[in-house]
């Protein structure tokens, strides 16, 4: 894009630009391919995949909140075997690295999903979702205790042929401790942040709006929390970070890069505008161009360069 070098490297993956969809906000790409050419993306991140198919939670599953939304989808997905057989192959045509988001209820389940994915040629990396607030058993509890997190990451790393990004939960007292634990356990990169646990009450019906009561808060409302956590973690841990949480514009992407992310993912914004990912990409490129920034890489961590 006219002179600005947008490429980034991320745990050995070479991306032609740093913008990708956030898991769960893009399904497996088929629907989105009607709105723009997916080969323009830096990478593709697909919906959480579990060992067995899951039907997810009852409805209502989504609710709007000020500058944000709650979701409690509950990992609805067709299971890893069908994802490998039916979803990943068609994504190859875009020539873009594919990252598969992995979820599970037990360490063994994470490991088995990772093992099966390792036998597929149709992806470049795993994103371990140890932070999904939407399923009672599995998901977030792996991501809130450093020891448990390290255990699942270590176990997956032993079987995975692909680099492993670990998706961190913001619902913790000390995100740096979590990041350190998964780094020590062998993670190749971090994705942050997943959603914050929230709730809305329907005051007329006198009960929570979501069928599951609580759900995950995403969107611009959480952006300051995401930026703060990425800023902290990027200074404490030397893993590449895929930053996300409320990005809706190119300037938001710049903010995440400057906070210390090496790439960014766009989630909720896809619901505001189906072309959000490529819009963010174009705005990011224009931002760099207007300010004479030659390579987007130069922005990574720029806000923390002065030392603590």
């Amino acid at each position, binding site marked *: 894009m006219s002179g600005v070098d947008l490429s980034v490297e991320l745990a050995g993956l070479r991306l032609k630009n740093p913008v990708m969809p956030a898991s769960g906000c893009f399904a497996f790409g088929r*629907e989105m391919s009607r709105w723009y050419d997916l080969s323009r993306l830096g990478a593709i991140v697909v919906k959480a995949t579990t060992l067995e198919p899951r039907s997810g939670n009852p409805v209502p*599953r*989504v609710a*709007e909140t000020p500058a944000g939304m709650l*979701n409690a*989808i509950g990992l609805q997905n067709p299971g890893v075997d069908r994802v490998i057989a039916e979803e990943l192959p068609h994504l190859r045509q875009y020539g873009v690295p594919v990252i598969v988001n992995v979820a599970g209820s037990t360490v063994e389940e994470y490991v088995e999903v990772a093992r099966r994915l390792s036998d597929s040629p149709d992806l470049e990396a795993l994103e371990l979702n140890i932070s999904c607030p939407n399923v009672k058993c599995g998901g977030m509890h792996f991501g809130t205790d450093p020891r448990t997190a390290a255990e699942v990451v270590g176990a997956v790393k032993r079987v995975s042929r692909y680099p492993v990004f670990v998706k961190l939960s913001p619902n913790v007292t000390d995100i740096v401790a979590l990041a350190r634990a998964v780094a020590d356990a062998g993670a190749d990169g971090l994705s942050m942040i997943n959603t914050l646990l929230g709730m809305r009450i329907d005051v007329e019906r006198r009960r929570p709006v979501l069928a599951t009561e609580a759900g995950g808060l995403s969107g611009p409302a959480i952006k300051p929390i995401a930026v703060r956590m990425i800023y902290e973690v990027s200074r404490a841990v030397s893993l590449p970070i895929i930053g996300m949480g409320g990005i809706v514009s190119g300037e938001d992407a710049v903010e995440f890069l400057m906070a210390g992310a090496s790439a960014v993912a766009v989630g909720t914004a896809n619901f505001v505008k189906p072309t959000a990912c490529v819009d963010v990409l174009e705005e990011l490129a224009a931002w760099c161009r207007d300010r004479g920034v030659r390579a987007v890489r130069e922005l990574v961590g720029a806000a923390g360069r002065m030392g603590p």
Partner: protein
Amino acid sequence: MRFRIVDQREIARNVFRLRMEADRPVGWSPGQFFHIRVDDGLEHLLRRPLSLCEAEDDRRFSVVYRLVGPGTRRLARKGPGDELDVLGPLGRGFPLHEGDHRALLIGGGVGVPPLVQLARELRKRGVSVLSLIGFRTAEDVMLAEELAECGSVWILTEDGTAGRRGRVTAALEEALEEPPDRFYACGPAPMLRAVQSALAGRLPGYLSLEERMGCGIGVCMGCVHLCRDPEGRTRYRRVCTEGPVFPAEEVVFS
């Protein structure tokens, strides 16, 4: 896509008809919906789904909606000339069947609007239309004249202040006396369930469902409804892209 508002008027108590014009022609069918951003800012992130009520041509449409919360309240503040960020029309609308002669349309409350363009399309094909439309009270009655241009209309109100007293299901048997080939229903879930169970095995038809939507384009899995496939297996299907209109026999109400 940008639509320009042509006009907006209150047509029943707290119910607005908004006419809008797309900047270029778009394909549509009755029963589809528009996914509308109520404001360009970030406070209200999610779009609001509103059914296509009337299509004057390939660019001019109307939607009819009730004020229920902050999103529709904000929409109601807009006026002629204002621009709207709109996706759609999206989803799968009402299928029309060759060879049908009589159709029964059943609508409750803000389930009535999508029936208007449907009635017109049926009418154009020579299908004779009977519309059963139910409301809470006389002040809520809407779109009866538009439907009357396409066939017979029976109005029901729960309190009897307009038309007959009762719910649409109370008039169902009578509506079947001259047997229709098919029914099309849209309205609140309890109404749809009652219609489904009253007509199951007797008359084929379609239900148009409502669920809270995230994306409206099939990627978030927010808007699912339980459906039974022909083999009898139930699974969640997306109202936004696989619906909002489903064959009545496939829909499972829990």
